[in-house]
């Protein structure tokens, strides 16, 4: 439980991240509340994306990456031995910076996850497809052409398809790594509206370069920074978005959000 009585989904304690000898993150403490949007902001190269990727162990794919400290999901350390990473990634879905639909049909993209978990029944799958695409606000645009290639969609549609693909495995948390950086303002607007709706059901963590987006969208904001090139990234300040953007404790936070560096 956090101070205001909300359930905590992720609890990071003294988390360090190493890439071989290089320390990329140091001493990260973070509480991520259920059914809220937590934004991670900070200048380029400060480790925001790396921090996000620690939450579903996506860094495992990088040779030499190692995490120390605690990352609890519902009170259980996801970095403990024999933790089921596949199950973790099902519970904690991820949307990437560049829309990355598979070179398959829209239908196959959405059913990819459910099929992995052994759902074969056609009707069930079709139900999942419709529901996921509706939730991702894409259904009306693709309803008649589910069998066409996902690559024929526009960038914004592809990104919403990627969100639908994540929703199809009914995750508890959705991680988004700068999901709008490759999109135009209108597509961005749609994704933001969508996320505001999704937070009723899901816990959302979003990395963004766009300060306005963090301010508009999130309930909590974490500001990451590195002191000098080669230093590890650290959390400078973490708190309710309102406080961070109107009355930050740390001078560096204020300088960053008012656009004086980074």
């Amino acid at each position, binding site marked *: 439980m956090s101070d205001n009585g909300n359930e905590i989904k992720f609890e990071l304690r003294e988390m360090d991240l190493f890439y071989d000898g290089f320390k990329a993150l140091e001493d990260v403490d973070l509480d991520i509340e259920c059914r809220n949007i937590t934004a991670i902001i900070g200048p380029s190269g400060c480790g925001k994306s790396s921090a996000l990727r620690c939450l*579903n162990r*996506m860094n495992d*794919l990088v*040779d030499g990456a190692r995490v120390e400290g605690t990352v609890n999901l519902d009170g259980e350390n996801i970095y403990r031995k024999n933790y089921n990473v*596949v*199950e*973790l*990634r*099902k519970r904690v*879905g*991820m949307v*990437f910076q*560049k829309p*990355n*639909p*598979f*070179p*398959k*049909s829209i239908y196959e993209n959405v059913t*990819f*996850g459910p099929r*992995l*978990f052994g759902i074969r029944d056609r009707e069930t799958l079709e139900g999942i497809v419709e529901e996921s695409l509706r939730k991702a606000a894409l259904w009306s645009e693709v309803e008649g052409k589910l069998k*066409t*290639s*996902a*690559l*024929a969609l526009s960038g914004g549609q592809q990104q919403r398809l*990627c969100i639908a*693909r*994540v929703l199809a*495995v009914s995750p508890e948390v959705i991680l988004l790594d700068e999901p709008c950086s490759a999109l135009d303002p209108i597509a961005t607007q749609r994704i933001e509206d969508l996320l505001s709706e999704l937070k009723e059901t899901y816990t959302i963590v979003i990395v963004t370069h766009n300060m306005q987006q963090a301010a508009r969208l999130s309930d909590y904001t974490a500001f990451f920074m590195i002191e000098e090139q080669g230093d590890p990234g650290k959390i400078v300040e973490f708190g309710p978005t309102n406080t961070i953007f109107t009355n930050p404790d740390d001078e560096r936070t204020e300088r960053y959000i008012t656009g004086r560096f980074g």
Partner: protein
Amino acid sequence: MKMDLDTDMDVEVESPPLDEEEKAVGGRSDVERRMRERIERTERRAAICDRIATVVIWGLALFGLGILAFIIGTILVRGLTTALTPGFVFGKPEAIREGGGIWPMIVSSFYLALLTIAIAIPLGVGAAIYMAEFAREGWVTRVVRFGADSLSTVPSVVFGIFGMVLFVIYFGLGYSLLAGALTLALLNLPMVMRTTEEALKAVPCSYREASMGLGATRWETVKKVLLPSAMPGITTGAVLTIGRIVGESAAVIYTVGIFIRKVPTSPLSPAAPMAANIWHTYTEGALVSDWMRVANGEAAFLLLVVLVLNLLARLAANRFQKRLGAVK
């Protein structure tokens, strides 16, 4: 490509535009004139060099193509009429009399190719998947890669002798399709491995992330995302390998055989793939008076087969590419 410099532009860069008055002053316009002459000279020289280079490069390309056309032309002119005769293609080979055909040789070639592919593709693709997706970059992968690269430079006749010693004699397979297929599989393994690995590496990393991010294991990712995406590359590699097998003679001579009269039926039968049989007919075939006709016809037929296979490789790759829906 032709350089197309705008002279006026260049002069402007060197000296800013002059007023009418200034132009009247003799010294300035003299400098300008000389400058312009120099630029024009440089330009002319560049244009001439460019033209010479273009002619030379075209000439070299045409020379290469010309040789290829000459070889193909010669083979076809000498043998095409024979190669396209049904009696020749489907006929039985003759050891002493005239008028023999090459049907058993054609069957041998394809039988051998299929057997080889059946051995080489699973091995090569499997190894490539391991190398590209599972193995950590380190000394093991480096050694395997170095080994594969070295193997691909070994002359095929060496493989032939190795295959003869190991499969034909030691394993007691005798001269047979299986012994040949095993040898040729070794010969082609590096190529299959390399093309598959390249194809897998060319699959964007974002597909891997997307798949694993949805909770797929590494193997599920390979099976459902990477292999389908890499299929055009793998298929092209496979068809080209078939082409190489069909055209291979040295390794075949030592392991499969050079002349038969009956169509081979089992993998343990001796056989005589076309390329090996052509060599045999040219060098020792003088027992039949029309050996020249047989060899030339067979060569033309073999050439057609290889050309068609290469064409098929292209078609298959394009087809897969389209099905993947790559719009860009």
